[in-house]
């Protein structure tokens, strides 16, 4: 019997042929925590009496509240910095950016097992790694033992067919999928993507899709590797990390979905669940108070280029705040060099240091009561951005940029030549 991508990678990491439903112990290649989850990992790690970290790379990301907005968080950050001093673990400190973007640029290799105490660790699936989120205690064990317990998931296959229309992006595809199958549509399973549309998507656009797998409840969002993957790794000096990862032709999928993207419209997810997705034609006109372009979902250079192409020579609506947060230092430098910051600044944007920005609700754009934000992030739960009396709408960077100009949810195709 052939294997899905999930089954192939987990078989390698367990050192035996695995089958869905089986509980295995798997060797961890890469392990990450962040400033929200890491201090608890350190506490549990110390309780076990572990002395050093086992995985090739164990990384502590200070990205959720970076730079720190208050003393409790500054102290939490120091717990991570101190841990890195006494172990082989590394710190990625203030200004470096969001964990998932840095992992993609520097560390994740096709075929790796990456575990992270952050739900959007599934982003690494876009590079053909089995990459999944878990808790702080799991990460203490991954750090200390170099392995984790896992239940092998069944896989749902998503075949993406057709031609992606202008103004419609990978964010719209994944919002559409989640809107169709539901926020628990793939609970516990692995998502695997295939089909001709992948050839039309850059590596960055693919990462957006994998990033949101967890919003359908999935354990991983796996994309086979190809020349696009190789070119991306090469861009970051990691050509040798490339490896072909794909499912066997006779792999067994629990369900297969075929999605024709040719007629998709830009999508917007309404509050307070990600699956509350509407087409732009049914969403336009909603007045907003803030637009946020950034995050591990859509804070990459390609996203900023798209937003800048719409904002060029235009101004944001006077009644809204426009916040731009590059996902990493590399994205930040590229945007600066390419003149994108000039466009954002002239449009009236506030540009913040690389990191999670206002997505997590701790700083840099907490909503006021009864305010609405249109954001390129992945999640719109009640209270997510720091105020349960605020509302979060999710969309692509293009839709966000167009909406920043008009002050209401707007079809980006109105602004594309």
């Amino acid at each position: 019997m052939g294997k899905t991508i999930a089954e192939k990678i987990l078989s390698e990491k367990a050192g035996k042929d695995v089958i869905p439903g089986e509980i295995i112990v798997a060797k961890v290649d890469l392990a990450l925590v962040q400033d929200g989850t890491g201090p608890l990992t350190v506490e549990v790690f110390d309780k076990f009496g572990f002395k050093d970290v086992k995985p090739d790379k164990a990384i502590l990301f200070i990205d959720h509240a970076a730079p720190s907005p208050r003393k409790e968080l500054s102290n939490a950050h120091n717990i991570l910095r101190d841990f890195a001093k006494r172990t082989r673990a590394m710190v990625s400190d203030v200004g470096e950016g969001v964990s998932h973007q840095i992992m993609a640029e520097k560390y994740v290799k096709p075929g790796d097992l990456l575990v992270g105490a952050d739900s959007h660790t599934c982003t690494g699936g876009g590079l053909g790694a089995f990459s999944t989120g878990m808790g702080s205690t799991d990460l203490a064990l991954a750090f200390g033992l170099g392995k984790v317990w896992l239940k092998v998931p069944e896989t749902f296959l998503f075949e993406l067919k057709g031609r992606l229309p202008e103004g419609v992006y990978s964010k719209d595809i994944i919002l559409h999928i989640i809107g169709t199958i539901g926020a628990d549509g793939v609970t516990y399973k692995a998502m695997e993507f295939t089909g001709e549309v992948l050839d039309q998507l850059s590596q960055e656009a693919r990462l957006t899709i994998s990033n949101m797998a967890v919003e359908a409840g999935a354990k991983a969002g796996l994309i086979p590797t190809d020349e696009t993957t190789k070119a991306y790794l090469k861009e970051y000096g990691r050509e040798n990390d490339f490896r072909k990862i794909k499912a066997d032709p006779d792999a067994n999928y629990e369900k297969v979905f075929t999605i024709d993207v040719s007629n998709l419209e830009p999508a917007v997810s309404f509050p307070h669940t990600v699956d509350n997705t509407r087409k732009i034609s049914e969403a336009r006109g909603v007045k907003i108070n803030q637009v946020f372009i950034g995050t591990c979902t859509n804070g990459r250079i390609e996203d900023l280029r798209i937003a800048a192409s719409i904002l060029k020579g235009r101004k944001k609506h006077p009644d809204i705040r426009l916040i731009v947060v590059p996902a990493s230092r590399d994205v930040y430098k590229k945007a600066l060099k390419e003149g994108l910051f000039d466009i954002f600044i002239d449009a009236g944007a506030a540009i913040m240091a690389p990191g999670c920005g206002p997505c997590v609700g701790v700083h840099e754009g907490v909503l006021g009561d009864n305010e609405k934000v249109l954001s390129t992030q992945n999640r719109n739960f009640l209270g997510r951005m720091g105020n349960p009396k605020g509302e979060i709408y999710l969309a692509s960077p293009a839709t966000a940029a167009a909406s920043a100009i008009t002050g209401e949810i707007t079809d980006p195709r109105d602004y594309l030549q």
Partner: protein
Amino acid sequence: MILKGKVWKFGDDISTDHIAPGRYFHLRTNLPELAKHVLEDAREDFASKVEKGDIIVAGRNFGLGSSREHAPRIIKLAGVAAIIAKSFARIFYRNAVNIGLPLIEIKEADEIDEGDVLEIDLANGFVKNTTKGKEYKFVPMPKFMLYVINEGGIENYISKYGDYKI
């Protein structure tokens, strides 16, 4: 293990932001303080009124969202003995197992009301609603997870065995 307690009722899609809101991010290194806000954005009075041994009963996809283990930890810290739901989000489920908080999936969760008294037999897979005189079957957790729950969480489990015994 038999658990007995009275029910607190919640709806569908209770996220980790309902359970441990982002605005209390700075309290994550102070779990007893964070526990004073547990489930605040779903029911404001929950933290002040919940009693030791109480049971949460909810709808679909309980615990969706973030990987924050603080969410199940503060539910346990508040005294909750178990959570019953129609379904759970994956990371929440995993975290709950690791910290020794039993979760039970039953489709008929809607038939259970606030204040009902339940008895849960984890190993044999029964929930008895003693208030209504009804009984429900559920598929017990896989053995490994039950061992972890019975040890009170994976900290105790690993301390005892030194490694995963699978």
